[in-house]
């Protein structure tokens, strides 16, 4: 086992290990359901598809978050960007619902990017401020105007309907994933993200427009959050204030479990995909086991620390 692990390339390790852990979770869950109900629903395609469907919201959020983390930044404005996109989309309604939602994501991304790239305020704190401004705006919106919060039929279709027996939400997630993978590996923008994340000064002096790259990544993150928000509103048939709260920390955890370096510069999208799947299934199995919140928190924490420890401890600073 040890030998097999050490033979892996370092960047593949997180993917393989988390994939293995996913299987372990499914097996443990199945042992539990067999013992209590005598059934093994966890390996049924229905269950898995349904998990992926609900996981697609987290998956899309995490995809955007990864772009920002690759830069060594973080986007804490996700919760209310997501909620605001959903609320504005449903408030506008009709054909303009989707474009409105996405536009909210773009706008928040632009503001975040501006603050981080041009005002040079640490993203940890600027996006936190933007999140609370968005919350304020939404409280004001809900309280001051007549909010229409019903998801449009298109949103419902995208989030809840199936095509060939597979939920459409999964197709949306797949489409977002393809876009991100192509962006990261096959475009100047993606390569510049890695370069900027590794050393911004060197990237800048290489003639990379690092401010644009930063803005671009935050816009990507905002748009992903917005897409997730619109889908989630479709899935729940409506938008509501707290809808984004459950996505921030799991998204960060998924990205990191997937092997992306939290300080930026390194990481593969496949890892994020696997990380999201792991978190979604872990949550679901814990909820099936009716694990009380206390136990969930402890397990959650132990899994993250444990996985990161298994990946091999981070290397020392270079140049030492």
């Amino acid at each position: 086992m040890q030998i097999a692990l050490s033979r892996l390339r370092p960047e593949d390790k997180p993917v393989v290990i988390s994939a293995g852990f996913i299987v372990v979770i499914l097996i443990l869950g199945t042992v539990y359901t067999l013992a209590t109900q005598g059934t093994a629903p966890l390996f049924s395609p229905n269950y898995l598809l349904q998990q992926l469907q609900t996981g697609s919201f987290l998956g899309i959020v995490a995809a955007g978050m990864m772009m920002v983390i690759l830069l060594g930044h973080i986007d804490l404005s996700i919760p209310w960007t997501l909620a605001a996109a959903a609320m504005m989309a449903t408030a506008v309604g009709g054909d303009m619902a989707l474009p409105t939602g996405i536009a909210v994501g773009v706008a928040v991304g632009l503001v975040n990017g501006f603050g981080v790239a041009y005002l040079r305020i640490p993203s940890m704190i600027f996006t936190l401020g933007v999140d609370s401004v968005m919350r304020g705006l939404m409280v004001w919106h809900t309280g001051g105007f007549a909010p229409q919060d019903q998801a449009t039929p298109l949103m419902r279709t995208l989030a809840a309907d199936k095509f060939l027996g597979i939920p459409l939400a999964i197709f949306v997630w797949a489409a977002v994933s393809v876009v991100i993978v192509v962006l990261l590996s096959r475009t100047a923008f993606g390569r510049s993200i890695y370069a900027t994340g590794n050393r911004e000064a060197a990237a800048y002096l290489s003639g990379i427009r690092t401010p644009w790259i930063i803005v671009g990544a935050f816009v990507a993150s905002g748009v992903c959050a917005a897409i997730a928000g619109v889908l989630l509103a479709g899935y729940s048939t409506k938008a509501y204030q707290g809808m984004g709260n459950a996505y921030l920390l799991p998204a960060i955890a998924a990205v990191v479990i997937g092997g992306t370096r939290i300080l930026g510069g390194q990481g593969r999208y496949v890892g994020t995909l696997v990380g999201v799947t792991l978190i979604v299934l872990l949550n679901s199995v814990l909820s099936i086991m009716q694990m009380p919140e206390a136990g969930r928190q402890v397990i959650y924490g132990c899994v993250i620390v444990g996985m990161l420890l298994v990946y091999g401890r981070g290397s020392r600073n270079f140049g030492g």
Partner: protein
Amino acid sequence: MPDHPFLQLTGISKHFSGTRALENVDFSCERGTIHAVLGENGAGKSTLIKTIAGVLKPDTGSMSIDGQAVEFSRPSEANAAGVVCIFQELSLVPDLTVADNICLAMPPRRFGMIDRRAQHNFAEAILARIKCEDVDPNGLVRDLSLSRRQMVEIAKALGKSPRLLILDEATSALTRKDVETVYDLLADLRQDNVACLFISHRMNEVERLCDTLSVFRNGRHVETFAKGTRTDRDIVRLMIGREVDAQFPPRPAERTRPPHLTIQNLSWQGRLKGATLSVGKGEIVGLGGLDGQGQKELMLALFGVLRGVEGTVDVGGQIGAPRSPAAAKRAPRRICLVPEDRKTEGLMLPMSIADNLLAASYSRVSVGPFIDPAQERKAVDAAIAKLQIKIGSPQDAVATLSGGNQQKVVIAKWLMTDPEVILLNDPTRGIDVGTKQEIYRLMRQLAEEGRAILFYSTDYAELIGCCDRVAIMYDGAIVADLAGSAITEEAIVGASLNIGASLKEAVS
């Protein structure tokens, strides 16, 4: 005289993934001598002294000091044994004050707490000893120039009262005056029976200071001999492993070239004060002067890094300085800059060699918005071949390369963009003779291809040997523009000090 050497290494080997940095090295050094360690880039000099200083653990071999076997697992242990090292990449903490840095690990204490006053006095005394009274002990190291930082680093080492002092290219950025101070200091230390290991790529320094020389090549200790027993030529042959002829490529006949890059009255923040200069196509213009006279700022201004630059810049008919490096590198200006500090400004160290090479030229390997992997591979291979960069695989992290090869990566990255104006900020700092020659040749070749080259160097010999013209900066302005046979050491030094009257005194 004891019968065993003061410092003795036996059978030391150190391997990094893929490279043998040190291979079965036996080495010794005596007290009261200054011992030069020579070798081209990547020969293993830094690795050697890092093993001595407890930063790296050797894979095999043993070490003894004063006949006692020692094994240092961290720098603090080496310090405790009197082994003090000034590392190639400085070990100062930028956000602490100069005094804090000088007394970093062993500050004077009272009641278990650091005694600031005693620390301040101690720092002041040591700075005075190395004639750096101008450095404020309460100032932050961050605010100091590179040469001042090197002096503080030397002060810090002195403060530890070393028995063995190691300087790994510790004089590479010093001004002439400081170099003299350091020479005197080292001579004093020799008097005090301190052992000194001195690493430098500047032969004249070695010549002047050292008693004993050791040459390393490819991780092996080639030979140790006393000064004067070998000619320079022999030494270089030992280092490179082959005969090296004329140091600089021949200069083409003088001819007038239409200016391609023209700067007039460039001013910025009191650091540039009306600099005026022009560089023609196919011309190498050297930029000289004492360190910190605005040479770096001039290059950054031309490359679009500085805000609020006044004056006119004209590149190939394109009026105005670029507003960002991105604008600078694009047509029609096509400017590139090889920056001063390759580790923080030139390279993304953990990224692969290929990614670093491509960082400035994504658009050249793209089809539409997408990067074409085939073109990408071709471009990288071509760049590596062109500069003969010594690498394992293009996918290895650039951090694993030696200093010289890292510098080549930076240059290669820019050559991929096919620049017309090349700004070189001290590109040969810390680079071995062989690589230096390659770089000189490359510069000449690029000039022949019709590019305009502006070349800043702290080494007068380079300016004299390589450049068609030399412009000397003093206090933010160009004070002399030397051409052809006017480029002499006297002229350069005189102009650098900008004092005609006391010129003789300064040179002597």
